[in-house]
């Protein structure tokens, strides 16, 4: 490592935990030989946890992981969004992970380990029942058995900014488990790990805290704005209703005034109607009186005329005489119903002129002279005059009565129309009153509250803007820092990648636009893209930032190479690192197993730029030859291989409680293991494609 780069790396002062000793005792899953459990010292180089499916390889890796991270998990863990969640740790959700795997609930099970952090030494023991601390020493000095104190110690030993960062680094960088975060292939993940590894502690802390604060405030701001908008909308609607209220009140006032006017008009029309009815009654009185007077006159005249008719028609039936008398007396014609005075006058004139009232014969041609009808001509004439007068009066009174009836009819129709209108007005007023009752609005109160909230929202927006500006300032430092380190990282990556990639791979420093929170501008965060030649082009081509741009094997090993480069760059080669890899063969074609093994071993080799590192890998005892490749059996003789295995292999075939497969096929597995020590390794190594 160039002196300059080393100096820069020192600034970060990151030290990764390196496992040097592991003891698992009292855990039924690993009874060990002679019930001694597992006890293993880890040396520089590769250590393989060998076994078959179900023997507890992953559990053992988790024992190592949990010794470091303890009973805590990130609050919002997402494999695909590392670093995006809030930076909080909460109690481990799967507390029964170890105890549920054994019959005794891991009551007396414990795990103990020694980790080196550079020159410093952490000795830790935890109960496998609940991960409680059983022992804790740093550089031989005992610490209180308190998880917080352990956290502080871990932060201090590793040189990171926080327990969260320590947890993240262990979980997502040191450990490369099957359920892992694709660190390289994730822009947020890349930047998050840069922050933790490469920036000085205040910057790392500041960036971490600011990002967390921005996320919290962004979320708070959005929640508040959502609530505010909802209330503002409701208020706007209420205000609109209030506008309606004002309109309604005005309309109600107008309606009430109209109703009052209608009522007054009705009272007047009632009085007028009463007057009309009275007038009509008077007319009827007058009319009926006149009719009775006429009746009297007619009967008197009839009595007078009766003598005339009795003389001229001595044998005439009474009824006919009555009819003629009625006619001559002005009472009308009972035969045809004609009541006109003219017919009576005609008969009277005939009688007066001694003309026959039946055939109108003059006296000179009459066989029997019709005597003059008037016995008392003067009296009859007087009565006839009165009778005519009454007839005229009656006629005019009848007309008056008809007029009275008409005006009453008119006023009744007018009142009916008025009633309809009045009912409509009252109903309209009632509807408005009901509406007014149903729309109370404390306009001032809501307005004040909303104004206050608007101000608060505005203040929050300003605060968020300030935070984002501060973050941008810090980010500028981060970009500058990463640009300084970019070459170191790139060259380390190329060195590892070239070991197992047929294609030429390079990193290209290319800041990514990353969002913090759901709104606001993106931040240009330090990031690296992969440039790689392809089968069809030998020149280093376009950036491949998407995991789907490369094959599955390439994806895995590019991520591994990136991690190795990160570790080497972060430590500057001044302290050892550790990678824990779960079944590296799982995504490899068998042809490339040896090559992968060589690569992983290369990470552990002590070079001029790196101390010897530790790589712990779990692997299946199968015919893929991963274990020999990891342990570097190469062409070594069987005895040497056994020696290497004793030193660098935790053989779960011997140490773990036999499962059903072991009970059935134990001899076959042991034969496979034996073969591993004796078989010739495949010659040559082909790079991974």
């Amino acid at each position, binding site marked *: 490592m160039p002196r300059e780069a080393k100096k820069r790396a020192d600034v970060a002062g990151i030290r990764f935990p390196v496992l040097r000793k592991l003891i698992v005792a009292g855990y039924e899953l690993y009874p060990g030989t002679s019930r001694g459990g597992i006890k293993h010292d880890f040396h520089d180089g590769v250590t393989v946890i060998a076994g078959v499916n179900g023997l507890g390889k992953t559990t053992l890796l988790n024992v190592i992981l949990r010794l470091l991270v303890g009973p805590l998990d990130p609050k919002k863990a997402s494999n695909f969004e590392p670093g995006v969640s809030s930076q909080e740790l909460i109690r481990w959700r799967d507390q029964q992970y170890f105890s549920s795997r054994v019959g005794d609930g891991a009551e007396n099970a414990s795990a103990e380990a020694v980790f080196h952090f550079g020159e410093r030494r952490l000795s830790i023991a935890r109960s496998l029942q609940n991960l409680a601390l059983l022992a804790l020493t740093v550089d031989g000095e005992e610490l209180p058995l308190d998880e917080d104190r352990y956290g502080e110690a871990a932060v201090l030993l590793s040189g990171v900014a926080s327990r969260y960062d320590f947890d993240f680094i262990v979980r997502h960088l040191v450990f490369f488990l099957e359920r892992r975060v694709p660190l390289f292939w994730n822009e947020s993940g890349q930047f998050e790990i840069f922050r933790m590894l490469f920036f000085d502690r205040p910057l790392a802390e500041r960036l971490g805290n600011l990002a967390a604060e921005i996320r919290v405030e962004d979320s708070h701001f959005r929640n508040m704005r959502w609530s505010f908008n909802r209330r503002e909308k409701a208020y706007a609607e209420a205000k609109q209703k209030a506008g309606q209220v004002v309109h309604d009140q005005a309309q109600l006032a107008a309606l009430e005034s109209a109703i009052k006017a209608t009522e007054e008009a009705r009272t007047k029309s009632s009085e007028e109607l009463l007057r009309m009815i009275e007038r009509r*009654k008077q007319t*009827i*009185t007058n009319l*009926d*009186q006149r*009719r*009775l007077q*006429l*009746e*009297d006159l007619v*009967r*008197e005249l*009839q*009595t*007078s005329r*009766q003598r005339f008719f009795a003389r001229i028609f001595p044998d005439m039936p*009474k*009824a006919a*005489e*009555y*009819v003629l*008398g*009625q006619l001559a007396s002005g*009472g*009308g014609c*009972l*035969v045809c*119903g004609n*009541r006109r005075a003219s017919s009576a006058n005609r008969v009277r004139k005939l009688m007066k002129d001694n003309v026959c009232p039946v055939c109108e014969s003059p006296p000179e041609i009459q066989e029997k002279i019709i005597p003059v009808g008037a016995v008392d001509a003067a009296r009859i004439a007087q009565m006839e005059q009165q009778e005519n007068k009454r007839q005229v009066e009656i006629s005019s009174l009848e007309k008056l009565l008809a007029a009275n009836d008409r005006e009453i009819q008119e006023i009744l129709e007018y009142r009916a129309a008025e009633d309809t209108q009045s009912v409509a007005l009252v109903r309209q007023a009632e509807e408005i009153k009901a509406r007014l009752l149903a729309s109370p609005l404390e306009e001032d109160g809501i307005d004040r509250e909303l104004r206050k909230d608007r101000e608060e929202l505005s203040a929050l927006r300003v605060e968020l803007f300030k935070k984002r500006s501060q973050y941008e300032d810090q980010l500028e430092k981060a970009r500058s820092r990463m640009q300084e380190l970019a070459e170191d990282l790139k060259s380390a990556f190329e060195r590892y990648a070239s070991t197992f990639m047929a294609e030429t791979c390079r990193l290209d420093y290319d800041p990514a636009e990353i969002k913090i929170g759901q709104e606001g501008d993106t931040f240009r965060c330090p990031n690296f893209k992969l440039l790689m030649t392809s089968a069809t082009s030998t020149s280093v081509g376009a950036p491949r930032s998407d995991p789907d741009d490369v094959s599955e094997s390439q994806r895995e090993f590019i991520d591994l190479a990136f991690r190795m480069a990160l570790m080497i760059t972060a430590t500057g080669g001044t302290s050892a690192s550790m990678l824990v890899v779960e079944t590296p063969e799982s995504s490899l074609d068998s042809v490339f197993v040896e090559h992968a093994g060589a690569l992983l071993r290369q990470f552990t080799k002590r070079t001029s730029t790196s101390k010897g590192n530790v790589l712990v890998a779990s692997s299946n005892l199968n015919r893929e030859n991963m274990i020999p490749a990891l342990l570097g059996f190469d062409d070594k003789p069987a005895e040497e291989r056994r020696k290497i295995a004793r030193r660098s292999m935790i053989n779960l075939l011997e140490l773990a409680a036999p499962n059903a497969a072991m009970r059935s096929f134990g001899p076959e597995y042991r034969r496979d293991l034996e073969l591993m020590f004796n078989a010739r390794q495949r010659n040559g190594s082909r790079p991974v494609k």
Partner: protein
Amino acid sequence: MNESSAEAEEPDYDLSGRVWLLLLMEALAHAGLLPIAKLRLHRILYLSNCLAPVFQSKPPKATVIKYRRGPFYPDAQWDIDRMAAGGLLAITEIGYQPKDEFGPWVESTYDLSRAGYSAARSLLGISSACRVHEFLLELANAFSSFPDERLDPAPLQDVNYAAPAKPEGALIDFESIASNYSLQTAVAFRNLAPLQGATNRREQIYFYMRYLEQRNLAAS
């Protein structure tokens, strides 16, 4: 369509005037009061006008002028004479009185002709006419229970007609229930102990007639 709704939809026939008179004549025939003198006919016609609301019927005329010869409707007389000339009624007697206590008068007596009887029976096919006829029949029967000497004077004791504040020539108006004292009196018999609540409308007419008789007896 059922019978009751058919009845409900019957046209609103005008039962005033000649129809009312013809039905009254038919009722009087049943009560053995025919032939009937003009003035008596007018008095019972007047009583029918006053008491029709007891049977929820609308009378032809709800006013009368207080007249020295007693209640008299000139229009009704015209209708009576027209029906007589038309053959529905028969004029059985005509008496020309040059001068009685109130002046000259022509008294006549009327009966129901065969044609009139037949026309009245036809009218009973109309349910509203039938209801009126029921009332007129009760009225005529109650009226016929007067002793002969009370037949003419008793109606003059009618509460509406005999109201002391009404001078001759005044209009007696009993159009509203409030102003129809005859009706109120008849209906009041409903509440008389020991018959409280037990009287029907027929009995109310009957009691009112007895009441007129008693008033007349008291007045004479």
